[in-house]
């Protein structure tokens, strides 16, 4: 079974600054995906970024980037130029790739507050 650990229950950052959210996972599989989801108070789960395990290059989406360390089983999210709208719960998630392996396993989440 896979596990996902987010060791930072809460974090805060000043507007326009950079913040990094941590995530580690445990799996014996080699082919998988990793995700970061954002859940604002509206409770909508919004996909922030996705990383395929077979890709060495770290994924980036505008102000969001990841540091994927496969050997260390680490998958941190960096948010640059933080904005007030980034205030939300952030969940790290793991998903196996391949037929019959579609469910996501989520970490407990990190509550991020962006301070004006």
């Amino acid at each position, binding site marked *: 079974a896979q596990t996902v650990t987010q060791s930072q229950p809460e974090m805060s950052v000043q507007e326009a600054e950079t913040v990094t959210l941590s995530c580690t996972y445990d799996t014996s599989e080699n082919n998988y995906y990793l995700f970061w989801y954002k859940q604002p108070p509206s409770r909508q789960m919004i996909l922030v970024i996705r990383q395929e395990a077979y890709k060495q290059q770290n994924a980036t989406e505008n102000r969001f980037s990841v540091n994927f360390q496969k050997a260390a089983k680490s998958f941190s999210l960096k948010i640059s130029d933080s904005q007030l709208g980034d205030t939300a719960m952030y969940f790290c998630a793991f998903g196996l790739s391949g037929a019959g392996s*579609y469910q996501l396993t989520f970490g407990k989440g990190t509550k991020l507050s962006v301070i004006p």
Partner: protein
Amino acid sequence: SAVISQKPSRDICQRGTSLTIQCQVDSQVTMMFWYRQQPGQSLTLIATANQGSEATYESGFVIDKFPISRPNLTFSTLTVSNMSPEDSSIYLCSVEGPVTNYGYTFGSGTRLTVV
């Protein structure tokens, strides 16, 4: 990407009653899932909704309590039966398939309060 309509968005129900939550997708999707998010907690998978066959339930969740239907590739329902206050949670529908570029797209959730 797929657009999901999840209804109702919220409801307050009496204990002992049942509530059916609907998940409608604007495109055919391979996989549909139902998650539960208890207050202040992360998401837990309830079951995978299989088109034309019985849903696949995770440990701790049973069909009698959470019956699921999936009559076609764009629609699924989750029923929370014989509700108790412990069922008060957010319930989320999620889909995955070629139209989501194999990412997982979520509905806006149903906030259920059982009194």
